[in-house]
């Protein structure tokens, strides 16, 4: 029974099938929102599904100069690791037994793997544009990882203090505390950290002001220059699931427990919290990703790096200092 339930988690609900659907759907919603904000009609919401299946039917080309095995395997590893993170994030009342095995540290490590897969794939494609894109992606990673890690530290330390233990990195403890005592973003010492996390989201998923690594107008899609066909589809899918995972992580850390338990049965509570979670994901997608994408243009790599090591880092450090001072 345990095994069957585990298989269901991995393959259907927070796992493969659900991630496939929600990742592509969120990409579509993002494109539609941006189109409406620019007074366009825009593509249908299921457009990314068409794109994905079309890419499945395209000819598969592996360039001669590429390191073939790495070139093929890199996007798949990125997809697997991002789906693994989706299993580890609790959705309010909905918890799987995977949540007990993983904490924020594991999630931080796993979050670097899709970016690393993009870097390795781009560098192995044998194209100079791929090399340029890979180097830019490395710089971006250095930029956003610092505020992200400090933000997670601040939240872990705050919840740890409030529950009279040392700093806790277990997501399940953080979510349980919020369900009992209200969402963490109401703790005013965590508000700067929440803002810093919101600023990290667009860079982590590579949307417009920070899509420097795959800038199609200047370096021909950068790391993705030689990728076409299903491998590029897998990369787009990874990007979509990354949107879901990053926003879910934000909600789990800062905005859990807004709706109270509606009934005594865990199943009904889980269903309600999943529906609420999806609505919240779309709202935060609008604030953190689409609004920014519709109103800004791409910035240069050193501007992005400078931005991340000043404002979000300062905000998250402020939060950490406030928490450390016991506020």
């Amino acid at each position, binding site marked *: 029974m345990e095994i069957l339930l585990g298989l269901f988690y991995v393959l259907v609900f927070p796992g493969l099938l659900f991630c496939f659907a929600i990742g592509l759907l969120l990409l579509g919603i993002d494109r539609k929102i941006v189109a409406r904000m620019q007074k366009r009609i825009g593509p249908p919401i299921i457009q990314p599904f068409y794109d994905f299946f079309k890419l499945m039917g395209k*000819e598969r080309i592996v360039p001669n100069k590429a390191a073939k095995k790495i070139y093929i395997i890199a996007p798949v590893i990125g997809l697997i690791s991002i789906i693994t993170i989706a299993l580890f994030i609790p959705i309010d009342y909905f918890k799987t037994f995977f949540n007990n095995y993983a904490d924020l540290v594991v999630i931080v490590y796993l979050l670097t793997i899709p970016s690393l897969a993009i870097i390795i794939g781009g560098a192995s494609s044998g194209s100079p544009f791929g090399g340029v894109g890979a180097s830019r992606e490395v710089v971006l990673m250095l930029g956003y990882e610092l505020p992200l890690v400090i933000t997670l530290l601040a939240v872990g330390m705050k919840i740890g203090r409030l529950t009279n233990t040392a700093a806790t990195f277990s997501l399940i403890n953080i979510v349980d505390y919020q369900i009992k005592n209200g969402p963490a973003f109401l703790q005013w010492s965590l508000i700067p950290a929440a803002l810093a996390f919101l600023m990290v989201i667009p860079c982590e998923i590579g949307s417009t002001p920070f899509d420097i690594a795959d800038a199609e107008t200047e370096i021909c899609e950068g790391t993705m220059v030689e990728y076409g066909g299903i491998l590029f589809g897998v990369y787009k899918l990874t990007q979509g699931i990354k949107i879901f995972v990053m926003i879910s992580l934000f909600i789990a850390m800062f905005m859990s427990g807004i709706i109270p338990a509606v009934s005594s049965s865990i199943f009904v509570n889980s269903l309600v919290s999943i529906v609420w979670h999806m609505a919240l994901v779309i709202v935060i997608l609008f604030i953190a990703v689409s609004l920014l994408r519709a109103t800004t243009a791409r910035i240069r790599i050193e501007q992005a790096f400078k931005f991340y090591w000043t404002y979000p880092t300062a905000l998250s450090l402020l939060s950490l200092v406030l928490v450390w001072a016991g506020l």
Partner: protein
Amino acid sequence: MFDDIITKSKVKSPWLYHLNTGSCNGCDIELISILTPRYDVERFGIKLTGTPRQADIVVVTGPLTSQSKDRALKVLSQVPDPKVVVSLGSCPMSGNVFKGSYSIEAPLDRFVDVDVSVAGCPPKPEAIIDGIIKAIEILKDKRG
């Protein structure tokens, strides 16, 4: 299993690659204008990609100068099947005002199969959209 979905999706999501073979930039500006909010071809699922590896429709502008001929043909051969080639403007059709010049290899269909030709110097955005919709019809019947 996925054949039906793939055939349907091919029509719904044609991605453009814009190949300039020595154009005067007139057709290029008109091509970009169809992606702007006024004409918005993204409602057909059309997107401009930066690399030929992801393209379904290649839009060629310019009179195919001798310098760019080899490179243009190389880029066209990098596009995975199924693909459709659209020539945009009078230049790749006939050479336009440059016809007879020593540095022009003009009609593009001497070297590759051109599926749709849009005439004009430059063509109107409406004509370009019409040409691309015709290209999508051709793309439907092509096999990868």
